């Protein structure tokens, strides 16, 4: 049963990060700040062609550049990057890596997109490495290429893989991923009206400020890898698998990292290339990606095409939802390619067909809530449109149709009605919404949009170790890295609360697989709830030891560990949110300005109110960027990417943002550490949908393509 939160001592209070001073004085050591004696610098050569077979590579001249220690290519380095072609890491499935037909190597031939890796050089300094890259001579046989998912499925389309362009599934068969609930035909038969619309969404690069780098250092048969990671244990496991080692032969270290938003979950090819060069040179190797390398060699959110068909009765009850979706995965299927959103509706008749497709664009992969923001944009644009066509308020339409707990599917608690009610009030929805969309008389038109969601907060396995010495100093060992949300601080706060001591009495050791136990990784918004539960249970064990033996004396230390795998007793555990946006569109220029943004979230108990608020504010602003600006455009004639950088992809700057209003409804559902749920990804999910709906309400024009750039608005205004 859910209940109001009871005040706690440490948790729930604004708490500066435990490493705050290092972050503002330049003392925080990121991967690229580390120097080892004799360290070499490495650079990667990338394909300038969207699809080509390498006929010959001549590295002889490059090898003669003074300072060059090694040049490696597909002819000399044959490492399979397991996480590069089917989502890797312990949390996924190692068996797939062994059986997949479509392996991705650290250097591939043929190269399948502009930016595919061709060669790497290690030299005594980075300029010599760059000069050597320019002297590698490559003969390419140019192959035809295809950029768009639907075109790639045509029978005469250029084949990116011998098996065709429909991505193979884990069983190596090529078929759309179909999920079906109820009876879709009966659902459409029961409808008074059926609406259909196609939506599409662009590629959004994760674009973390820290470019990819990796420092690899072999000592005998043991590899130490310093790398920016969102999961040091998963990265270690991936490295061991790809290099044919045992997990314990690899040490992964990451104390600070400059963002990732999902593109640093597993090991990356940079890690494997650095390790290979280090092996070849018998020296530590620092591989640095340039910004363009990062843009083309990492990944971003997959572009999608979403064809919806929705049946409703005249009273506004949804009777059937069908989605035929396509996701452009680039030439390698690094992640699933999901399009979520249908499951937000109670409608029993749902059909979804998802087709992940290979294209000769750069690789797609996980970006903060990998399947949600684009899918929620599609489905909630669709539903918003239907509400207005039926003459209904979209909020009333949602309250009529959104998923609620049932006897068959109970929730640990349910807050969507409360979130929506609070948002309607805080935002003044009735006053800001135009009952007739586009009804402002002048060229500046304002309107209001709304979207809602729930997002997984299920529990799972992770580990923690806590110890106390005779001076009553507590040390917490957790294999987390702080990717921005403040995991070190959050873990320390949970331990301090559970121990009943101030946070200053708890030292947190993290970011090193040789010193810390397994942690689930900073992906899927799981660290706080999963590793946090392990901290709680390890502390309980320690307290039992103290009760049995007393506090340690002399040189004694009490140590406790826990690896719980808690469940939610068959109940769905979700966090909830509703976002309300006011947008002003200048119909002469096509520009959109967000003038008010209210985000209501129920994420259980809030551990640290300040960092929690800023997770939502930052995620919302990322979502606004996705809604209005960001895309990786390609020249269709040449297959060349055109917007590989912050300037051209038009990322939000200080001048583009407004203050995001965030409200948390705090609830303790009795699960998770002190009732905490997920936060990190949830904030980005609703912005594209809410912004698009606000633009519709302002202009009366339904924008069916993300990002909603000026040209699209001007085109719609006619």
């Amino acid at each position, binding site marked *: 049963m859910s209940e109001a939160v009871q005040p706690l001592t440490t948790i729930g209070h604004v708490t500066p990060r435990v490493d705050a001073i290092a972050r503002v004085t330049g003392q925080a050591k990121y991967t690229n700040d580390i120097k080892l004696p004799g360290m070499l610098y490495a650079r990667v050569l990338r394909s*300038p*062609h969207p699809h080509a077979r390498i006929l010959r590579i001549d590295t002889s001249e490059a090898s*003669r550049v003074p300072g060059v220690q090694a040049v490696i290519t597909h002819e000399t380095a044959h490492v399979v990057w397991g996480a590069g072609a089917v989502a890797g890491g312990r949390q996924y499935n190692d068996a797939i890596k062994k059986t997949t037909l479509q392996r991705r190597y650290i250097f591939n031939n043929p190269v399948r997109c502009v930016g595919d890796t061709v060669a790497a050089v290690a030299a005594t300094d980075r*300029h010599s490495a760059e000069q050597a890259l*320019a002297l590698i001579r490559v003969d390419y046989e140019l192959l035809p290429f*295809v950029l768009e998912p639907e075109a790639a499925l045509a029978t005469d389309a250029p084949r990116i893989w011998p098996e065709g362009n429909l991505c193979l599934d884990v069983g190596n068969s090529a078929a759309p991923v179909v999920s079906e609930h109820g009876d879709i035909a009966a659902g459409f038969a029961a409808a008074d009206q059926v609406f259909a619309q196609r939506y599409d969404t662009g590629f959004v690069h994760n674009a973390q400020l820290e*470019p990819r780098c990796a420092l690899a250092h072999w000592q005998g048969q043991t590899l130490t890898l310093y790398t920016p990671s969102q999961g040091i244990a998963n990265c270690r496991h991936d490295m061991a698998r790809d290099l044919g080692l045992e997990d314990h032969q690899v040490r992964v270290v990451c104390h600070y990292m400059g963002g990732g938003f999902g593109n640093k979950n597993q090991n990356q090819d940079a890690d494997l290339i650095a390790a290979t060069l280090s092996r070849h040179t018998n020296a530590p190797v620092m591989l640095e990606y340039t910004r363009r390398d990062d843009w083309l060699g990492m990944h971003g959110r997959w572009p999608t095409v979403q064809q919806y068909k929705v049946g409703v009765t005249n009273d506004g009850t949804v009777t059937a939802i069908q989605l035929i979706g396509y996701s452009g995965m680039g030439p390698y299927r690094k992640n699933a390619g999901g399009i979520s959103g249908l499951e937000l509706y109670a409608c029993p008749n749902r059909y979804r067909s998802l087709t992940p497709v290979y294209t000769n664009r750069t690789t797609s992969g996980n970006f903060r809530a990998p399947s949600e923001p684009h899918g929620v944009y599609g489905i909630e644009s669709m539903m918003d449109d239907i509400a207005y066509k039926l003459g209904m308020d979209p909020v009333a339409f949602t309250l009529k149709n959104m998923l609620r707990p049932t006897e068959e599917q109970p929730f640990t608690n349910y807050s969507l009605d409360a979130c929506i009610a609070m948002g309607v009030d805080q935002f003044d929805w009735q006053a800001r919404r135009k009952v007739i969309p586009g009804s402002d008389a002048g060229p500046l038109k304002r309107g209001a949009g709304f979207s809602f969601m729930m997002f997984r907060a299920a529990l799972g396995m992770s580990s923690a170790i806590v110890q106390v010495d005779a001076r009553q100093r507590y040390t917490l060992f957790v294999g987390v890295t702080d990717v921005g949300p403040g995991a070190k601080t959050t873990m320390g706060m949970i331990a301090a609360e559970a121990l009943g001591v101030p946070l200053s009495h708890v030292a947190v050791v993290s970011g090193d697989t040789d010193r810390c136990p397994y942690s689930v990784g900073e992906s899927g918004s799981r660290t706080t709830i999963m590793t946090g539960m392990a901290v709680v249970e390890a502390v309980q064990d320690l307290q039992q030891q103290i009760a049995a033996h007393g506090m340690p004396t002399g040189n004694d230390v009490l140590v406790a560990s826990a690896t719980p795998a808690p469940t939610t007793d068959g109940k769905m555990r979700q966090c909830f949110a509703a976002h309300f946006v006011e947008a002003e569109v200048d119909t002469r220029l096509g520009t959109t300005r967000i003038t008010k943004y209210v985000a209501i979230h129920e994420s259980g108990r809030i551990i640290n109110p300040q960092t929690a608020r800023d997770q939502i504010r930052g995620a919302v602003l990322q979502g606004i960027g996705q809604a209005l600006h960001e895309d990786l455009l390609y020249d269709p004639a040449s297959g060349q990417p055109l917007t590989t950088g912050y300037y051209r992809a038009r990322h939000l700057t*200080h001048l583009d943002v407004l203050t995001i209003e965030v409200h948390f409804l705090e609830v303790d559902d009795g699960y998770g550490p002190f009732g905490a749920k997920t936060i990190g990804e949830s904030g980005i999910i609703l912005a594209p949908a809410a912004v698009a709906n606000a633009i519709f309400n302002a202009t009366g024009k339904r924008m069916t393509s993300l990002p909603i750039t000026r040209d699209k608005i001007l085109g719609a205004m006619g």
Partner: protein
Amino acid sequence: MCDKPVASSSSKEGNPQAKPHREVLEGPGLTPDAAAAAMTAPSRTAIRLTVNGVSHHVEVEDRWTLVELLRDQLDLTGTKIGCDRSECGSCTVLMDGQPVYACSQLAVWADGADVQTVEGLAHNGRLSPLQQAFIDHNAPQCGFCTPGQLMTATALLNTVPRPDAAQVQQALVGNLCRCSNYNAIVEAVVAAGVQQGGAA
């Protein structure tokens, strides 16, 4: 659909059965002279500069940027390289009091300059009011853009002691934050101004 080989002869475009087109890829603008240059030692220049109040007399390669000099030679790694091409502002330092992108200044251009980096903001272990405000307002998320934000904001506060939010946004427009923690950064700078502006 325009799925054509980039450089094929026109009659063969789009035909996978066409005779392979072959080209030799060379680096952008690489001339025989440049190839020869790669084989010879880079030229070096001796410069003097002051960094965080400490004077340095160093010999730099002419191709080094200021951020390379700071990070690689002087071990001041607080200054970050985010894009290395004047887009993101992670490498911002103060050069004779003005914020500059250290990725886009050659080290030799810093001859005679007075440079301040993030490591120079605290004095005798005491944080500047701006640094403290960054902590109090949770301005760093991942923290990678933080040194650059701090340096541009320091320059702003030196000239506008009590900026309002709009002035801060205007001044910091060249410092990107992909965590998009812009609200907290602006709140921190405004708060620091209020605190130290009273004395100004």
